[in-house]
């Protein structure tokens, strides 16, 4: 089915509740529905198996309009269906929860509730979950009339302190991991309740390094924001800058020259290699296999040098400008890239052999943390984590963008869904990337590197999705026609993959937990673009007793 047919199918599905259909661009369908119909409409989309819920964006239309809008983005191939729900800004802006139908929605709904002051009815847990504990009540940072002065910490409320569980029972106690812990070099906090060695409960909290980037973007102009969004993540910085530029270019209706697109794909490919090799090392270290860690990081230096040679930077490459790229691939760089890729390819093949044949390592990966295809769909997993379970979630394949139309890639999937499969998927994916990059370097289209993008971007809204190393990256951009954006919303892939850790840790050994966390390749800094707190049993609030029961049942199976 092509995009047009998919959108027509979606329109037919929603015909009972659709108040108004909009087609902002050929790949999108916006359906305006009322809050009361939201559940029924979602159920219909879910039952028809139409795509997956990619993100929920909250919009504040301002005090004059007196309304707020929640946008539920469903993606199916390159078709994007957006359910638009409007509610009054002054009243409680009640929207029903759809987390019962689509479990991962609770992450997005909590963001909506805390950041914009929507009231999500049916979301049982209304505790302060997204913002710091000392954040004042009824102050919503993403509202347009928010003033920084309002965010003064409320004295007497301890920030970032979880209720101390301490010793839970006779043999049960809580093992805290993070935000300062050797297993986790990033600011996340997990609490695992263990009975001896067996984990009986898991919960987590993020948001220790919140930088308020989405809010900051609203006070910067379009080109300043490019550099701001590049800093959302320190590992996949290029994909963030790219997603942002693609969105802006879509809004400005600017066509990026083919040469620039090819160079963007090349840098994205190198970034994927660097990100996955970094992950390979970290994951091996979590398993206690430091030799693999040292070797993969040594080889990662090759790709870091390539990136430095092309862009001049090792981490935040700053390869993009709005409307193109600013780095050229000359004969010298092309030669270096090809030589580097040859070396990397041989190394990646070697690592693939190691992770699939080393008996001691397989002891720690084979059959551990297995996520079935159905669970992957239910949890809404993305990227390599989903592909290891046989679920093809790869924007490069499903909805090719930029140079991927010209230089397509194939999706790599595995069916086992365990940690081993996640290693295999990521490494095989690198081989595909190496092949594509070589093709790109050999067939670089001629032409300019960039086109001019106006200072003021025409009013409108755009969605740009692309495949980051960790999965689908979703950007929503809205312009009012000014020099600054009206709203930018980012949904990073890590946010969708947390469930895989929390669900799978229960019933396993404590020794497997670091591997499970590493298995989804979490990116904390991506998440901490917004404050997010998630708790175990996020499929609607399981009590400790239920969690323990789940653990016992899981383990006795």
């Amino acid at each position, binding site marked *: 089915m092509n995009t047009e047919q998919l959108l027509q199918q979606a329109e037919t599905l929603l015909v009972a509740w659709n108040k108004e259909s909009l087609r902002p661009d050929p790949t999108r369908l916006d359906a305006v529905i009322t809050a009361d119909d939201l559940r029924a409409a979602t159920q219909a989309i879910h039952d028809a198996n139409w795509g997956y819920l990619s993100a929920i964006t909250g919009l504040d239309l301002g005090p004059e309009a007196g309304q707020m809008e929640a946008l539920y983005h469903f993606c199916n191939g390159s078709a994007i269906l957006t359910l638009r729900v409007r509610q009054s800004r002054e009243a409680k802006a009640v929207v029903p929860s759809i987390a019962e139908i689509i479990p991962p929605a609770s992450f997005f709904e909590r963001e909506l509730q805390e950041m914009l002051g929507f009231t999500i009815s049916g979301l049982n847990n209304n505790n302060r979950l997204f913002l710091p504990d000392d954040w004042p009540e009824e102050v919503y940072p993403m509202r347009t009339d928010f003033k920084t002065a309002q965010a003064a910490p409320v004295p007497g409320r301890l920030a970032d302190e979880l209720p101390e569980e301490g010793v839970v029972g006779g043999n049960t106690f809580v*093992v805290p991991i993070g935000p300062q812990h*050797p297993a986790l070099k990033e600011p996340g906090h997990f609490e695992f309740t263990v009975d001896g060695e067996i984990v009986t409960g898991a919960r987590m909290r993020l948001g220790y390094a919140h930088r308020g980037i989405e809010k900051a973007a609203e006070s910067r102009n379009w080109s300043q924001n490019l550099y701001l969004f590049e800093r959302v993540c320190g590992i996949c910085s290029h994909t963030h800058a790219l997603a942002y530029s693609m969105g802006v270019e879509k809004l400005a209706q600017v066509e990026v020259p083919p040469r620039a697109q090819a160079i963007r794909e090349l840098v994205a490919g190198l970034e994927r290699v660097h990100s996955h090799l970094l992950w390979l090392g970290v994951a091996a270290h979590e398993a206690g*296999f*430091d*030799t693999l860690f*040292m070797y993969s990081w*040594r080889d990662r230096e090759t790709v870091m040098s390539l990136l430095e040679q092309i862009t001049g930077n090792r981490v935040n490459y700053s390869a993009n400008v709005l409307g193109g790229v600013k780095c050229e691939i000359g004969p010298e760089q092309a030669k270096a890239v090809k030589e580097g890729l040859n070396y990397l390819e041989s190394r990646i093949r070697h690592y693939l052999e190691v992770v699939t044949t080393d008996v*001691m390592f397989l002891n720690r990966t084979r059959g551990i943390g297995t996520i079935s295809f159905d669970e992957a769909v239910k949890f809404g997993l993305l990227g390599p984590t989903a592909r290891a379970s046989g679920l093809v979630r790869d924007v490069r394949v499903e909805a090719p963008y930029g140079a991927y139309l010209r230089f397509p890639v194939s999706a790599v999937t595995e069916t086992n869904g365990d940690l081993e499969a996640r290693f295999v998927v990521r490494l095989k994916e690198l081989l595909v990337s190496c092949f594509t990059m070589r093709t790109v370097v050999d067939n670089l289209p001629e032409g300019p590197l960039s086109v001019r993008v106006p200072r003021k971007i025409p009013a409108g809204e755009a969605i740009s999705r692309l495949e980051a190393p960790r999965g689908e990256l979703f950007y929503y951009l809205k312009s009012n026609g000014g020099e600054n954006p009206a709203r930018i919303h980012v949904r990073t892939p890590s946010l969708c993959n947390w469930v895989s850790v929390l669900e799978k840790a229960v019933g396993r050994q404590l*020794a497997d937990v*670091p591997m499970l966390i590493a298995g989804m390749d979490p990116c904390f800094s991506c998440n901490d673009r917004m404050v997010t707190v998630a708790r175990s049993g996020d499929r609607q609030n399981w009590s400790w007793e239920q969690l323990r029961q789940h653990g016992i049942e899981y383990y006795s199976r």
Partner: protein
Amino acid sequence: MNTISALFSILIFPAGLALILVGMLYEWVDRKLVARLQNRIGPRWFQPFADMLKLFAKEQISPGSANPLLFFGLPIMALSGALTAALYVPLMGRPVVHSFPGDLVVTIYLLSLLTMSMGVAGWNTSSRFSLIGATRGLTQMFAYEAPFLLALLGPALAAGSWQISEINAYSANHWMILTQPVGFVVALIGLMGKLELPPFDAPEAETEIVAGALTDYSGRGLAIFNMGKSVELVVGLTLMASFYLGGVDGILVFLIKTVALLLVMAVFQSLLTRLRIDQTVGIWWRFGAIMGLAQILIMILWRGWL
């Protein structure tokens, strides 16, 4: 005169001070070898000494919940256990300082004192990481101790004596690595288990439980525990060399044989992935113990035939 010479042997050379220094040198050799195998540069030769000096200069923080007597006493107990064990083994190719029939059993149990002290220390500090580390350490001890003992009994049976000095003398003419290869492998891996080296480092798996049983230790306490480990490394290697590698009867022979063993251990350390505690126990009881028993049975049968 006799007393002075005995005191010298115990406190300065070959046991005591010299042993501690040699232990730290061996720790460096181990670290350097592993680093080179992992494609790293590794530390310079004085790094373990520098670490030790730094730790001794630092304040030792005692957690409020810990029993102070145990907290300060356990490191000393661990070190003294390892140092006492050193008296019964032919360190640096020197004749043993003290010897009596059956000292093999005493030595093995003195060597276990380190693990037990660390277990009690982890329990005493009542930190969650320490508690899990201590549990794991003690669980692991129950797994490797019996096979390790069995593997050392093989040469003892062959030599017809449970006295280390006599076994050492016997093995000067018998390379028991050739006649008892299974026992050698079990003993070597058992020694790695005793020293909590990878892949048996679950008790101090930093990615799960920080530093395991010693998480709350700092300053002198930690330094003494580390020293105990270094000493135990040397004592264990000496024991292995004198039992299986044709004995040690000179400082050069001692160095060659023990460093060769250390090299093998370094290769294992860098090649193998950490085992989960259940896997460790499973491997020891399923393979280690059975292999050790088989070796002993063969030895008994062989002795019976003669």
